[in-house]
């Protein structure tokens, strides 16, 4: 069924249709954003979720006589510009991880091992991601204490934790990310 009529039925309270709508919408968004953010494949899925959330919260601003794609693309573009702006601000905090670091290759080979060497894994992260994770997630300090200890700003600590955990989780399965 067409995306628009699913959406309209959802707006009238049909949760099943609304769910189908969101499902198809996320595929559409993934393609739309993927084409425009091909340099940052990691950001696309985050942004898809961000857009879904925004469209859900703003669904009352859709006019039923308006083309749905115009509405969807305007929101997606707005959120994408938001992301690019935020990215340019925090780019200096961000060290991309190299996929073919030797440590990852070794760890992947030992993936069947239930126990992994936490310390060794953390060593692969740049300091601005490793220190926040060690202090906050392992030693149990607060974000503010960690910021004091390391001399980083609080938002840098949060970004470091977020990015560090994501980088680790991406390579060792979601179980890891959720457990942390």
């Amino acid at each position, binding site marked *: 069924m067409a995306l628009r009529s699913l959406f309209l039925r*959802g*707006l*009238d*309270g*049909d*949760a*099943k249709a*609304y*769910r189908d709508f*969101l*499902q198809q919408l*996320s595929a559409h968004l993934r393609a739309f954003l993927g084409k425009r953010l091909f340099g940052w494949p990691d950001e696309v*899925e985050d942004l*898809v*979720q961000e857009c*879904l*959330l*925004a469209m*859900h*919260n*703003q*669904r*009352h*601003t*859709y*006019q*039923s006589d*308006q*083309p749905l794609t*115009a*509405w*969807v*693309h*305007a*929101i997606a*573009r*707005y959120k994408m510009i938001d992301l690019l702006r935020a990215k340019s601000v925090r780019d200096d905090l961000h060290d991309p991880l190299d996929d073919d670091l030797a440590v990852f290759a070794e760890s992947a080979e030992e993936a069947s091992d239930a126990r992994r060497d936490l310390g060794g894994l953390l060593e692969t992260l740049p300091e601005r991601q490793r220190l926040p994770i060690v202090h906050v997630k392992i030693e149990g300090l607060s974000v503010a204490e960690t910021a004091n200890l390391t001399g980083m700003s609080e938002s840098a600590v949060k970004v470091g934790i977020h990015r560090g955990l994501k980088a680790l989780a991406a390579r060792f399965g*979601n179980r890891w990310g959720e457990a942390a």
Partner: protein
Amino acid sequence: MKTDDLVAMLANGDVAVPRRAASRRLRWALLAGVPVSLLILFAEYGMRRDIVQAMFWPMFWVKVLFPLCIAAAGYVAVHRLARPGVAVRQAWLGAALPVLGIWALAAIAWFTMQADDRMPSLMGQSWRICAASIGLMALPVFAATLVALKGMAPTRPALAGAAAGALAGGVGASVYALHCMELTAPFLAVWYVSGIAVPVLVGAVLGPRLLRW
């Protein structure tokens, strides 16, 4: 969180929204703001005493209606800007034409009147307080419209703020016109237009800061 989980979460529970919910927000903003503006007029300024007599003068209606046209155009523009993917189209003309019209009237009056009468007709008795008073009377509608916009999705926040300013400034000016004694086109062209321009500019500056979503 996985995207599928997010979808499941969002589609869970009551997903219905009332049709036209967004338009209703803006209507409520206007219904809440205009009475407060009128209240300021009656409490602080008072209606002009000869209001009944003034209603027979065309210039009085020019003074009341040209800001109302700007307000109407602002209202339409706010509506469109509050929704992602809706073009503003001709609404800007609705705000610009009344201003051009009053400027044309002022120019005609200026060049047809005696040189000695020009400055008095431009400054009137009340030029000092005119723009500030219009700004004050615009404030309730301005604040209410921004609150309404905050719950919507303006993808061009500076324009949306400016349109909210045009709506509020237009309402403020035509409310103030019920008090103001000035009736010359040059006065309206300068002081009324300035009074309306202030909320427009403030809106354009505040929009990107206040209307993020």
